[in-house]
């Protein structure tokens, strides 16, 4: 039993390390004092200043639009990529293809960002809103591909085969059978893509142009000038949104899982 006490200590210290900085950040967004080290009482004034900061609000709106569009494009492309990797064992250049899926996951952002910028300049595209979307779609689709791929690998193909045997065309089979079955993974992929797009500073800094300042770029330029409670306030809102999103997602996957198990039990009872 000595090892379980050791494990509990390790986990407590580890999670304290992971969470205390975030908790401190959230707590100080409600601080009435401007100084980080002084607690001046509870106040919502930084949320008010944040709300009336037009630059910050514009950047938030740009980021939200970039996030939704690039996550959606990235999810479509990533799901197709996952299908290609799992279902089509042989096609010309498959090695290169899988390499291009895995490499962006670890590629230092400065390299991805710089190379995309040079492409945009070489082709003569004006940098702005849409170039950020192209950049984000490119790296988020790889994450979506990994998430969907892991679902496809544990996928029971008998339903699909039954549909095809009964003469259902492959495209219809995909939309009627495959897609509903992998849908939780597709949604998880979309959420991951959206948060990655919301987070990205480095790639967006290279790919953006005038008029398309995203929230991380805005936050970064303010952070360089020092810690302000206003930044804490916007960070707190972002943390809150992400936490709610993750909790809703995990509850809904759990419910979907329960429903699936219940349906399977019902099916077994029905056949016997």
């Amino acid at each position, binding site marked *: 039993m000595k090892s379980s006490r050791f*494990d509990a200590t390790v*986990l407590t210290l580890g999670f304290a390390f992971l969470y205390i900085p975030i908790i401190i950040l959230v707590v100080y967004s409600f601080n009435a004092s401007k100084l980080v*080290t002084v607690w001046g009482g509870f106040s919502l004034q930084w949320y008010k200043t944040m709300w009336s900061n037009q630059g910050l609000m514009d950047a938030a709106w740009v980021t939200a639009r970039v996030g939704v569009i690039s996550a959606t494009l990235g999810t479509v492309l990533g799901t197709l990529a996952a299908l290609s990797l799992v279902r089509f064992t042989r096609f010309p250049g498959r090695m290169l293809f*899988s390499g291009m899926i895995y490499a962006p996951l670890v590629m230092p*952002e400065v390299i991805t960002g710089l190379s995309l910028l040079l492409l945009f300049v070489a082709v003569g595209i004006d940098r702005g809103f849409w170039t950020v979307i192209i950049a984000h779609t490119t790296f988020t689709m790889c994450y979506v591909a990994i998430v969907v791929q892991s679902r496809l690998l544990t996928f029971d193909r008998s339903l699909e085969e039954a549909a095809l045997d009964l003469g259902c065309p492959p495209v219809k089979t995909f939309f009627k059978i495959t897609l509903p079955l992998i849908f939780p993974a597709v949604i998880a992929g979309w959420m991951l893509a959206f948060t990655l797009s*919301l987070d990205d500073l480095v790639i967006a800094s290279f790919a953006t142009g005038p008029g398309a300042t995203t929230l991380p770029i805005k936050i970064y330029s303010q952070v360089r000038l020092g810690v302000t409670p206003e930044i804490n306030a916007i*960070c707190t809102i972002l943390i809150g949104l992400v936490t709610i999103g993750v909790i809703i997602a995990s509850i809904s996957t759990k419910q979907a899982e329960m429903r699936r198990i219940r349906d399977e039990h019902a099916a077994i009872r029905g056949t016997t």
Partner: protein
Amino acid sequence: MASVSETHPANKPNPARWLVVAVPYVWLLLFFAAPFLIIFKISLSETAIAMPPYTPLFDGFGAIGDFVSELDFDNYLFLTDDPLYIEAYLSSLRIAVISTFLLLLIGYPMALAMARAPTMLRPTLVMLVILPFWTSFLIRVYAWIGILKPDGLLTLLFQSVGLLGADDQVQIFRTDYAVFIGIVYSYLPFMILPLYSALEKMDNTLLEAASDLGCPPWKAFWKITFPLSLPGVIAGSMICFIPITGEFVIPDLLGGADTLMIGKTLWTEFFGNRDWPLASAVAVILLIMLVVPIMIFQNQQKKVT
């Protein structure tokens, strides 16, 4: 497995099937592969005071002869001449190696404890590791500025417990130590998750057999647990090591003027000095340095699938 899928009805020739592969393939060729060729090309061109700030190298396919004759390795020669760049590369590697080691040192016990936790608890623990990963990188680095800066919370804490005098301050912010703290903090979930998935799959009967045969727990760990978790160790280390080498945000916000990291150098060359060819050369060399770790990572990923 291959023979099954080849006779499978879904794999019969079908135009839709080609689109499934072609659409993401072409997208990645255009926006991931092509940019690398361009970065390589521009790293071999001269700096020009213009927009874009480099001399065009390749004007159509007829110009291949000119292209070869105009190749210009000056940027690379410049990089090897100036010790600043070599030092920045070496310092990035040093910081990445040390931080990966620290991440293993902290992440391994946590992953092991998670894998040994009661089955009921495990999903919650995994969720607790993932949650900080979903919150913005920038926000998490920013959180540490408030803690580490000289008039920040750590100084306040040390002063209140008497570890520091009222006039002393913690001198961590804007040093390499702050960079290590920031990196370990930001990358810890990336290290824990692959380790956990390797450790969780482990067959516990092996450890029971070892203990029945009189093997002490620490020896059983080094003889059984650790070797079996090696794929997780390699995956986690590569997932952390490669991006850390090119890290920009953490050294820029937490590091000092003397913190040399190549990601920061590239950023300064590009945005500060507007020397695009030199920045491209810096990126190409960084990429060459990372080829071996990236190949190890890809092999590891292929084994998983």
